[in-house]
């Protein structure tokens, strides 16, 4: 550590510089925003969500569907992972036994001790 710098393995991090940069960018954004149109009217179509040019659905998009494609693509893996999580306590004890064996085997055959 040297002064306000957090030394990481191959660089450094200064949160105060980041904060200063953020403040400057925020000011620029506010300046650009202030030069925008003043014709905004509450309660009109202007306030509707942008939905690719179509009228938005009456209900909000369900948050569960936010990553629909991503979740669908990973379904096989998550289903496989879920199949481990049976909720049966015997399986928990089995996992514990497996862990003991893994650690013992790794240390004994890995030449640690």
């Amino acid at each position, binding site marked *: 550590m040297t002064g306000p710098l*957090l030394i990481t*393995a191959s660089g450094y991090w200064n949160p105060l510089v980041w904060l200063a940069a953020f403040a400057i960018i925020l000011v620029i954004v506010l300046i650009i925003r202030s030069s925008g149109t003043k014709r905004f009217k509450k309660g009109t179509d202007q306030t509707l969500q942008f939905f690719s040019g179509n009228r938005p659905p009456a209900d*909000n998009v369900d948050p569960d569907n936010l990553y629909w494609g991503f979740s669908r693509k990973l379904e096989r893996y*998550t289903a496989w992972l879920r199949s481990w*999580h049976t909720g049966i306590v015997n399986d928990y*004890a089995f996992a*514990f036994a497996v862990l*003991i064996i893994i650690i013992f085997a790794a240390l004994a055959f890995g030449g640690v*001790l």
Partner: protein
Amino acid sequence: MTFLVEHGPAIAIAIPFLAAFTVPLVAKLGGRVRDGCVVLSLALTEFVVLMLAGDVLANGVRTYALGASVPSLTAPAGFPVRIILEVDAMSALISLVAMTIAFLASLFSLKLIPAKEGLGKFFALFLLLSAGMMGMCYTGDFFTLFVFFEIVSISSAGMISFFRSGESFEAAFKYMVISVTAGLFLLFGVGILYGNYGMLNMAAIAGEVAAGHSLLDVAAISLIASALLFKSGSFPVHMWKPDVFQEAPANVVVMILTSSLVGLYVLFRILFTVFGTVSTAVAGWLIVALGAVSIIVGVLMAMPQRNLRRMIGFVAIAEIGYVMLGVGTGLVSMQPVNAFGVNALSGGLFHIVNDALNMSLIFLAACAVAYITERRDLSGVGGLAHRSAPLAVFFLIGLLAISGIPPMNGFASKLMIFESVFFLNPLLSVIGITGSILMLAVFVKVFVALFLGTPYEGKLRKTPKTMLIPMFVLSVLIILLGLFAPFAVDTLITPAAQALLDPQAYIGGVI
């Protein structure tokens, strides 16, 4: 003050212990007296822990022999047979984190749990858990470690089933069965060490291990490490965590989360200090591998969850993985010590602090939402930012911190970990960064669901100040640790990392 510091290790354990047995009696005098007793005892303990940490950082290791005429008299007949508590920068840091969370969780508890008969007993368990965590932080011998491990397990199981519903009983039963199993294997490992060396003191055993070791040590460390990995909720013994997070009261979850970090600390203490003088590269790689898999399993299982508490439980598993990734890398590069190893270790230790704060904040905020809406099932609740802005802000701060968004504290520790583990294997950095991105995705989904969109039209309770204050304090700590991360690392984390890297300092405290 000198008395407090000199006897600090014992006092920090004794206060919550005594309070635990006093509170059920004091509760007969009324709810306010009971609450006052709980908060005051934990505030006093926090003060002692703080004083002790200041002393240890300034003057080095402090040793306390229970029952000795002079606390520093560890070897009455040239052999350390007494119960010895030992505090160095590492244990001071963890105890400070644990007690801060315990104090804030006790404040949060005051209005969370409906006043009903037996609340005194609940707080007795809460204080026992706090005392158990303090004991695990400060103990210098293996048998006392087992005793405190059991205290933490039993008190946790009692509190998990506090709501007395079918599901909470089931979660408590599962936790108890696996805790007892882990505890027995821990005792078995301790027994092997005792049979091998004829002693239980960690520093004394470390000295013996340095002189020569055998396959019995491998058996002992396998059993002890497995038990502690269970306590920390790492892969593949993580499955109890989502069950417990789903059913236990919010304040209990926060305490269990903290106790899992304390378990991880004890594991690191044993790997670095007791077995640190022998080659530990394989042990380090094992920790790194378990950490990486914990991240993958944690985030991938969190994504499809529809129950918020269960989802946070899986994220907690992934967060433990980051700590293991950093500290494991430090262990791999311990002999000889190199710069990226020290950096990874510091990042891992910094992430313990950040994880405790970030996860506590986000879980307390989520549970405050359940409290104000009077619903355990939060599906159908949305747009709360319009009606409860402080909760939205607290949740957002927790979300940004957990996901490692600058300038929050989580970013600083994760940056240290990612850049360091890259030198060990770039794939580890990829896993870490991907996990962090997925974590952000998971919490953005929750934030959108709970706080954005069409405002919830049901009746809302007012958020009590005793709930807002702990969340506010956690938020401030998160922001300050983020903005002044270099100072925090320099003052608290680097001394803790050095304490782990220098086993001789710990051993020298006793022998």
